[in-house]
């Protein structure tokens, strides 16, 4: 049972989308912690 190209593409694109969002999420958390004086 082979994974069809459409499902394979969706799988890769979905993973890539989260990897793209991850640095933006980390930076926004950093700004929020920095403003509250709660970095460390």
């Amino acid at each position, binding site marked *: *049972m*082979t*994974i069809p*190209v459409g499902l*394979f*593409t969706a*799988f*890769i*694109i*979905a*993973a*890539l989308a*989260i*990897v*793209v969002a*991850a*640095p933006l*999420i*980390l*930076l926004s*958390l*950093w700004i*929020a*912690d*920095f403003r*509250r004086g*709660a*970095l*460390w």
Partner: protein
Amino acid sequence: MNAVDDAILDPTVGWLVLAAFSVIWIFLGWFWGRGSDQLDDYVLAGRRVGLALGTATAMATWVTSNTTMAAPQLALQMGVWGMFGYSLGAVGLIMFAPLAGRIRRLMPTGYTSGDFVRLRYGKTAWRIFLVISLCYSLGWLVSMGMAGGVLINALTGIPYHYGMSVILTICVGYTLLGGFRAVIGTDFIQALLILVGLVIIAVLAITTVGIDTIHSAVLEERPELLNLLMPAGIMFLFNNLLFGIGEIFHSNVWWSRAFAFRPGVGTKAYTLAGLLWAPIPIVAGFVALAVPALDLNIPAADMVGPMVAATVLGTAGAVLVLIMVFSALSSSLDSLLAATSILVVEDIYRRHIRQDASAAHLRRVTAWVIVGLGVLTWLLCAPRIATLAELLYFTGAFVASTIWPIAAGLFARRAGALGAISGMVFGSAAGIASYFAIGFYVAALVGAAVSMACVLIGMLLGSREFDWGRLHERGLVQAGSPA
């Protein structure tokens, strides 16, 4: 066949990149380490780490040679199940989230996972646990050091021993100067570099080769990699899930973070880190599936990732790969050095040799242990013995056998020493036997199953209920603070 040598960086460029980042990490280590004279500041960043740095350090530490070397390698061995199985390593981070919150509440003055096992199960279980934990830590340190040498060699042509020595020296240097604060701070920057680098490589692989072309080339040359019913791949998936949980549940790398985070941060940080980490091995593994489409000749299995990246990206892109790889390895090596050093100092030196040692004395000993661990790792990395995946998976049986003793010990009052000891001993033995009898992909599975049976039987037969208050030990008196 394509000549991959054309895409590999000139050694001079490689040395320049290594030198630039070495200066940055060492400077940041010194900068963030100023004033870390207290033991708690040096080994646990003052126990006040917030959500942003907490999430990034958990994520960056878990991005190791797994993603840069073994994930692409396993994608070529196990196909889509290999990629998906690797991403299930994130389940370990997510499942550790509630444990991290509970650890912080139950042990506000704790230092190591060894502290927990000693107070919860007594000295015999503690010493068995220490053997497992220290062997695992050393195995992980060696695999990181080796990965550094191999990757730097593959990308720049710099000899293995030089690359391995540089990465070890730099990580020891900034961890020594800045302690855990340097580890956490650099991890944040390294997490960003890894993510951005991975996005660029994957996007260029897609635009250069195309997902459709990669799919059809794999289907033509290696159809088993796209088979959703690949038995070894499915076994690997469950095995990797348990291996990841075992690695995280027992290792002081993750416990030290639970102790270092502000109250209320641990659960959120580990959950978010797991969710953001999960797609990383999928994207890294996908890059390796471009091998058939690129018609590459891979001389050594553990060089799949860097060779594909170097072929797709060329010289300028290879600089980016080197930075990403350097970050991935540094973020794990520094964490391991910091967490293993306090494990050695607290559980071996303080508890076995100098029980009356002051916090200031332990602070100095920790620095020496960081240097000692660096030297030991270098000595073990010097002869390049096993392939990385083999080295990594050999420890699977041991760590998986600690899952149930740790989890039950944190939540179930009835869990007792006999169940924990038999779980770790018989689980490890059965896991290792299956490693040699069947294969690396079942060792953690068997180890966890046997350990679970032992712990559950121990709970059924035991009658004593543990008093959680016994986990709250009086903390060490820090210099300058009231006794």
